[in-house]
């Protein structure tokens, strides 16, 4: 009797050992082209768990970019919430990382730990969601104001300055605020545009579907939907199909999900355009960390911009093929 209990433990221990050695193999295998002398740099990549398509894209591009820099020991960790992310960052510090690339689960809760790491001399590369204090050495974000402005300008133009619009917002955050306020500024400047509904779909497909279902019931006529995210656009589409209201209406999502880009490319009436907000920006963060460390942090930071804003592009059937990456997860 007692033996099988012990063997259970042994199996569990072996299973863990298996995971461990597995990762050891991959890191030695990728270490082939490292520097000839000196210590290898250690860098942590701390990102949110893949709870929707865009964050899954972040993980994909983090994997791609770290693989492309095999001379550095990377440690990619995904966190479900700020508490978990703080623990992971603390562990990274104890493991002696030279740099961390952080996409925060939430801005304010992650600021103290980032400040602590920064104070301990760790290079901080912050991507997309910023901190509440300037504790990052480099902050890379998409231009969310341009996201709002360009998407709204396209909608006004396509509607000929007249029409009824429903708006789906994202998770309350600086990213969402910048997008919505810039878009609203454009809409308000066009008197023919009527905002008939405005609510949050939390950048989530199911939530957007629920919200759209309610919006459709209340509004017999909707000409276009500013969905601001491709996951939400797909949720809204489900609601429209279920209500038989997917004709004479179109949507503008956002972020450049490959399925949506494909439909833009194929001239789908529901998706005449999309706007980029590529999760691959995490890859740029990874590359920046690697480049700064290789060149020597002290020196490299002198000529590396503190704040890098990435432009966003309007995707139309004409240029869609340039933004279509069928192998990407997103």
């Amino acid at each position, binding site marked *: 009797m*007692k033996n099988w209990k012990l063997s259970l433990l042994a199996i569990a221990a072996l299973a863990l050992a298996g995971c461990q050695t597995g990762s050891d193999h991959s890191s030695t295998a990728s270490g082939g082209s490292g520097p000839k002398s000196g210590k290898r740099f250690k860098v942590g990549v701390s990102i949110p768990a893949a709870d929707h398509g865009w964050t899954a894209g972040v993980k994909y591009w983090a994997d791609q970019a770290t693989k492309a820099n095999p001379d550095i020991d990377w440690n990619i960790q995904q966190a479900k919430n700020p508490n*978990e992310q703080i623990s992971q960052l603390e562990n990274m510090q104890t493991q002696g990382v030279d740099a961390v690339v952080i996409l925060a689960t939430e801005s304010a809760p992650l*600021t*103290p730990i980032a400040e602590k790491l920064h104070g301990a001399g760790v290079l901080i590369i912050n991507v997309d969601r910023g901190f509440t204090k300037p504790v990052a050495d480099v902050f890379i974000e998409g231009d969310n104001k341009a996201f709002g402005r360009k998407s709204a300008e396209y909608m006004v133009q396509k509607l000929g300055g007249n029409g009824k619009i429903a708006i789906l917002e994202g998770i309350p955050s600086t990213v969402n605020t910048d997008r919505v306020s810039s878009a609203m500024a454009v809409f308000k400047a066009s008197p023919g545009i009527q905002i008939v509904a405005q609510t949050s779909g939390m950048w989530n497909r199911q939530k957007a579907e629920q919200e759209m279902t309610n919006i459709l019931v209340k509004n017999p006529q909707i000409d276009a939907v500013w969905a601001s995210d491709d996951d939400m656009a797909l949720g809204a589409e489900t609601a429209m199909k279920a209500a038989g209201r997917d004709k004479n209406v179109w949507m503008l999502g956002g972020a450049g999900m490959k399925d949506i880009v494909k439909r833009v490319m194929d001239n789908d009436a529901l998706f005449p355009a999309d706007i980029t907000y590529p999760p691959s920006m995490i890859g740029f963060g990874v590359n920046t960390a690697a480049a700064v460390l290789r060149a020597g942090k002290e020196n490299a930071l002198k000529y590396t911009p503190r704040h890098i804003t990435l432009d966003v592009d309007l995707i139309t059937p004409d240029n869609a093929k340039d933004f279509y990456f069928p192998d990407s997860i997103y």
Partner: protein
Amino acid sequence: MKWRNLLAQYGALFALIVLFGYNVATRGGEFLQLENLRNLISQNAAVGVIAVGMTLVIIAGGIDLSVGSMTAMCGAFAILTVNKLASGHMSPGAIMALSALVSIGIGALAGLFNGFVIAYGRVAAFVVTLAGLAGFRSIALVLGQGGEIRSSLPQLQDFGFGGVAIPGSHGTGGGPVILYWSALVFLLVAVATSFVLNRTRFGRYVIAVGANPKAAEYSAINVQTIRVAVFALLGALVGLAAMLQAAKMNSVGTGSEGLYYELDAIAAVVIGGTSLRGGRGNVWGTVIGVILLTLITNMISASNIDTNWQGLVRGIVILVAVLIQRGRPENE
């Protein structure tokens, strides 16, 4: 027979030693750094404080699913209090102490509410606290308008990452390794609760109520009062934990704070050998359970294993720890 009893009694400790040994063997010096060992105690200190309180509730035959949402609600009140007082002339220390009291008070009230409905409304603890899980989160979200509430008192964060410097130690940040206040609070709460459980009349009543409520009633124990008391005590501890979290983050994310704490706390209690049927359990087992859960995260973040495996490893450890403790007579 002796083997089995020994395993049953010290199952969690045994599992911890095995996992610890495995980490020493594979990671060596990096794992044994003082700073890393500190992390093992401090990172889940808030969950630890809650789990210790949960141990009493479970021993008394109850369960509380609302603690995670309650953490967010207490944290929201704590930060709002901090911000309200920070604009006045009060000293930072006094502000933090007062806010901690507010947080603990709100938690105790919420716990009292749970306890009263369970004891006098005769509704199952699972159901009442399930309602709390939804309700308390909602209150937090309303207070934070669905987002985060930031503290306007910078000293709060200094408290979050402050503590006692361990003499002669060297951390990776340059200075000595700091044993955080949160870790000390966690250990103190465990010592105090263990004392209450094992050395006081109240503790004996808690065990008696959980083991056999009818028999307890016949021995003139006020069963309902004991039930209300353990929930209120847990609530107060949740308030304390919420303040620790709020300090560490210098803010509270009303949507994300305390998410799954109820599951982590219950897992730690169960790993620690406390019976979900009530009437039997111990606080130090729970402490080991919390450290065991932290060790799993620690292990995974040290390697480059996909973080998504973490849940499976946790599940296996919970099951194994509980299975090896089943050495007692089958129909106890």
